[in-house]
């Protein structure tokens, strides 16, 4: 029995098309997942650097917003929460207070010796979110979280949309650029 080369080509093409059609839903659903923005109200793999009562410095866990509070959950036994109504300010990265001189004006960076950039808490690139809040007696607290890349701003925005207060901040000064020679 002779097999025609045209018949082979057509059967291979048909098999390819069938394979593509079968795998299309899987392929496209994967792409759709990648494009969907992550849930701003829940960020896993977050490090609590300091400032949460009952949580050891540097513990990792899940940061989430629900029921009018910001929760940090290390495990079922180790957790802490900050009522959103008690949040007085949220800072991202190297942001500073605007009223740093007490005159309510934006100040320029001044470094007494050396340097040329603002002092960073971490030398490697991470997203830091500082949440300032008051306890039931009015006492000030500052909780510092390190979030995965790209997750701090949506989390802050979500907290603000839920009623967290923020003030105007001084952004971190830009990295110094190299002097251009003529």
């Amino acid at each position, binding site marked *: 029995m002779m097999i025609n080369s045209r018949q082979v080509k057509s059967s291979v093409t048909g098999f390819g098309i069938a394979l593509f059609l079968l795998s299309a839903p899987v392929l496209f659903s994967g792409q759709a997942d990648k494009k969907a923005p992550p849930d701003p109200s829940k960020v896993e793999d977050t490090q609590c650097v*300091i400032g949460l009562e009952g949580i050891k410095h540097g513990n990792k866990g899940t940061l989430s917003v629900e029921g009018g509070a910001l929760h940090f959950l290390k495990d079922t036994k180790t957790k802490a929460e900050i009522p959103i109504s008690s949040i007085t300010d949220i800072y991202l990265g*190297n942001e500073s207070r605007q009223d740093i001189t007490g005159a309510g004006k934006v100040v320029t960076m001044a470094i007494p010796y*050396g340097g040329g950039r603002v002092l960073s*808490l971490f030398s490697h690139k991470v997203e830091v979110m500082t949440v*300032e809040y008051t306890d039931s007696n009015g006492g000030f607290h500052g909780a*510092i979280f390190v979030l995965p890349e790209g997750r701090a701003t949506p989390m802050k925005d979500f907290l603000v949309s839920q009623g967290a207060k923020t003030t105007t901040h001084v952004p971190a000064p830009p990295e110094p650029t190299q002097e251009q020679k003529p």
Partner: protein
Amino acid sequence: MNQLTENAVRYRWTAVLGGVALLLGLSMLGLSVAAAPQQPAQKLSASAIQVLRTQPSEGLTIPEDFRAATYEHLIDELEKTKKFQKVYRDGDRTAASVTDLVTVKLTPEAFKEGSQKKREVTTVSGATSLKINVQFVSKDGKVLLEKSVEGKVRFFGENLGATKDFAKKVAAAVNESF
């Protein structure tokens, strides 16, 4: 004759005892004089302490995460000293009722950014340092103690270490003075 001998013996014993008492007295005096310079300065005392947030300082911008870390580390370290029944945070309303409350005021003076990479490679350069003026003030506004404390991270670790180092040094000053 016997009477005279008895009197002489009595006088002799009195003189010996007097001499011993004099020597003891002088040696005690000598000891106290020698010990006087070693006596520690009068320690401060307070049942509670309140840490205020860092004061603004002219021309020096410190990111809020750095300020918050410094503040939280200082609260932790002051609690560890166990010198006070309570360590109050800034804004705590319940602190107002403490009659002998001491307030801690923090004013950043200078900082220098180092490099973790340099620290790890050379271990002699790349130190980050943070200098803060620390005032311990009584309820009537009297400055009880003032120090300029420098927090440093010299070798390994993040700049965060400078805030912890600062807090430990303040706690050491508290242990010395309270």
